[in-house]
C-alpha cells in the first residue's frame, strides 16, 4: 500500500531474535504506510509478529534490517536516548497488562510522562485531570491501581498515553484482559480519541468485533503482511 505523506512508513523491516543456530526471524520484511489520523487494527495468528511490529513502531525496539520512518526520521539510525525522546514527544503506548505503577494514584500515573517532560506542577495537574476526564475517571484521580477495576486501569493507562497529546497511540491488545462490555467501552474511547483529538491509533487485537472499530485492518501471517483491508469511511 502506498499513501501520500504517511506519518509511519516501514520498508522491508525484518527482526531476528537471538543469534546463531537459535536465531529466529520474527519479521521477514514488513512494508506498511500509515496515514496521519488513521485508525489501524493489526490482526493475525499468534506468533505472526504483531507485537514485534508494534514495539518497533513504538520505538521501543529496533528493526534488524530495513527502514522505519517516523515523521520522516529514520528511527533505525537513532540511539536509545533519541528514541526515548521520540516516545516522550510523539508516542503513547497502551499495554495489554496495563503496566501502571503500583501504589501510585491514577493522577500520579497519568502525570508521569509530563514529569519527564519537565512540566510544572500546575500544568501537570491540569493536563492530568483533563486526560482523566477524557477517559471518564476524573472522580477516581486519587485511587491506586489496586483500587480500580481492570477496565478502569486500562482507561488510566490510556489517559497516561494521551496526556502528552501524542501524534500516535499504540495499543497492543488493549482489551485482551477485559470482558466484552469493558472492551467496547475502551474501543469507543479509542474511536473518540481518533475522531475528535486527531490521534492516529494503531491497535493489535485478536477479536474481529474490536477490529470492526478500525478504518484499516492489517492482517499479519508468519512475519509478513498478508493483506490490508481498507474500510469505507463510516
Amino acid at each position, binding site marked *: 500500500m502506498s499513501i501520500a505523506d504517511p506519518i509511519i512508513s516501514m520498508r522491508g523491516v525484518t527482526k531476528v531474535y537471538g543469534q546463531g543456530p537459535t536465531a529466529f526471524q520474527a519479521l521477514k520484511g514488513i512494508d506498511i504506510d500509515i496515514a496521519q489520523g488513521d485508525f489501524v487494527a493489526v490482526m493475525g495468528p499468534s506468533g505472526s509478529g504483531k507485537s514485534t511490529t508494534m514495539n518497533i513502531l513504538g520505538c521501543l*525496539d529496533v528493526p534488524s534490517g530495513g527502514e522505519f520512518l517516523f515523521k520522516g526520521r529514520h528511527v533505525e539510525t537513532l540511539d536509545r536516548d533519541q528514541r526515548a525522546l521520540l516516545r*516522550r514527544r510523539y508516542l503513547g503506548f497502551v499495554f495489554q497488562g496495563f*503496566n501502571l*505503577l503500583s501504589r501510585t494514584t491514577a493522577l*500520579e500515573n497519568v502525570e508521569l510522562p509530563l514529569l519527564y517532560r519537565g512540566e510544572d506542577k500546575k500544568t501537570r495537574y491540569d493536563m492530568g485531570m483533563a486526560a482523566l476526564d477524557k477517559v471518564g475517571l476524573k472522580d477516581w484521580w486519587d485511587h491506586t491501581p489496586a483500587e480500580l477495576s481492570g477496565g478502569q486501569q486500562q482507561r488510566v493507562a490510556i489517559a497516561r498515553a494521551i496526556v502528552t497529546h501524542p501524534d500516535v497511540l499504540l495499543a497492543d491488545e488493549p482489551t485482551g484482559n477485559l470482558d466484552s462490555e469493558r472492551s467496547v467501552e475502551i474501543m469507543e474511547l479509542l474511536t473518540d480519541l481518533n475522531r475528535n483529538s486527531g490521534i492516529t491509533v494503531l491497535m493489535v487485537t485478536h477479536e474481529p468485533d474490536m477490529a470492526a472499530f478500525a478504518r484499516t485492518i492489517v492482517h499479519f501471517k508468519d512475519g509478513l503482511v498478508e493483506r490490508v483491508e481498507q474500510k469505507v469511511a463510516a
Partner: protein
Amino acid sequence: MLGTTITLAFRAINRHKLRSFLTTLGIIIGVAAVVTMVTLGNGATAAVREQISSLGANVLQLRPGQGFGRGGGGPRPPDFKERDLTAIENQLTGVRAVAPVVQSSGTAIYEGNNWSTTVYGTTSAYSEVQQWKVADGRLFLPDEEEAGKSVCIIGNTVRTNLFQGTEPVGKRMRIKGVSCQVVGVLATRGQGGFGDQDDVVVMPIKFVQRRFTGDRDISQIMVAVDDAYDTSTVQSSLEELMRERRKVKAGDQDNFNVFDTKQISDTLTGTTTILTQIVGAVAAISLLVGGIGIMNIMLVSVTERTREIGIRLAIGAVAREVLLQFLVEAIVLSCLGGLIGLFLALIATAAIAPLMQVPFLFDIKVNFIAFVFSAAIGVVFGYFPARRAAALNPIDALRHE
C-alpha cells in the same frame, strides 16, 4: 531534571515504606554495630592504658629473695635496713625518689563498721614514687614520720566501706586494735594490675614497724627512676650496690631481686595492642556482613523494580533519568540509615560503657568512616543493579516477572 528526579525518588521511598525500611535497616545495623564495637573497644583499650599508668612509670621494686616469694630452702634472706635506703638515696644516680615499704594486713574499725584491708608503712616519698595524690587532707608531716605517730591516709575503698557518708579526715579509727587519726584520703586509682589499689591504709613506716611488725626491717624498697635515665642502667647499678652491701660473693646468686614495673607495663601494652586488633577485625567483619545485607536488599528491590524501570523507559524516560532516580533513592536511604545508625551507636555505647566499666570515648573518625563506608555500599549496590536494569530494552524490562 534533577528536581523531577528528586521528587520521584522521594515518592518511591514514601510509597514503598517496608522496602525502604529494610534497606535502611541493613545500613543502620552495620553502622551501629561497627561504631558501638569500636567505641567500646577504644574505651577498653584506654582503660587498660590507664591501669598501666597507675602502676607508676619506671619504678624498680627491690625485694629480698629470688623472684617473687622467698626462694627455695636455706636460710631466709634478710630484709633491708634503713641504711640500705640511705645508701640507695646517696650513692645511686638517676633516682627520683626512694620509698621503703613494710606491709601488714588487718582490720580497720570505725563506729561499728569494720573492713579488712592492707596497711602499708612507708614515708611521704611513697606518694612521689607511685605518683599517688592525696585527694582530701594531707600527706604525713615530717615530725609525724620522724616520731612514727599514729596517723593514716586511707584509700577510697576503705573510705567507702568504713566511713560511708561521713567525712573521714580528722576522724579517729582503729586499725589492728590501735587507734589512729585519718589525715588524708588518696585519690582514686581503680582496679590496677594487682587488684584494688584503693583498698589500702598508708601509715608512717616507723609506726608500723613499732606496733605491727616489731622490728626495724624494711621488706621492700621502691625506687623511682628519673625519666632522664635509662631504667635498666639504674637497675644494674642498684643490683651491684645491693650485692656489695649484702656481701654476695661473685658467682653466687643474688639474695634479693629487682623487679621493673616497666616489664608489666610492656606486657600489658602488648595485650592492649592485640585487643585493639581483635576489635578492629570483628568490626571489619560486621561491616562486611552489613554490606552484604545491604547488597541483598538492594538487589532484590531492583529485581522487583525492573518492570517499573520498563514502564518509565516506555513512557519516554531516558535511561539516565531512571538511573539518577535510583541513585538519589539509594543516597537518601543510605545516609538516613547511616545517621540513625550513628545515633543508635551513641545511645548504645553511652549505655554499655558504664556497665563494662570502660570510659566512653566518642571517636569522630570511627563514626565518619563507618558512615561513609555503609553509605557507599548502599549507593554502590543501589546503583549498579539499577544500571543493569536501565540498560535493558524497555520491552524486556516490562516482560520481567
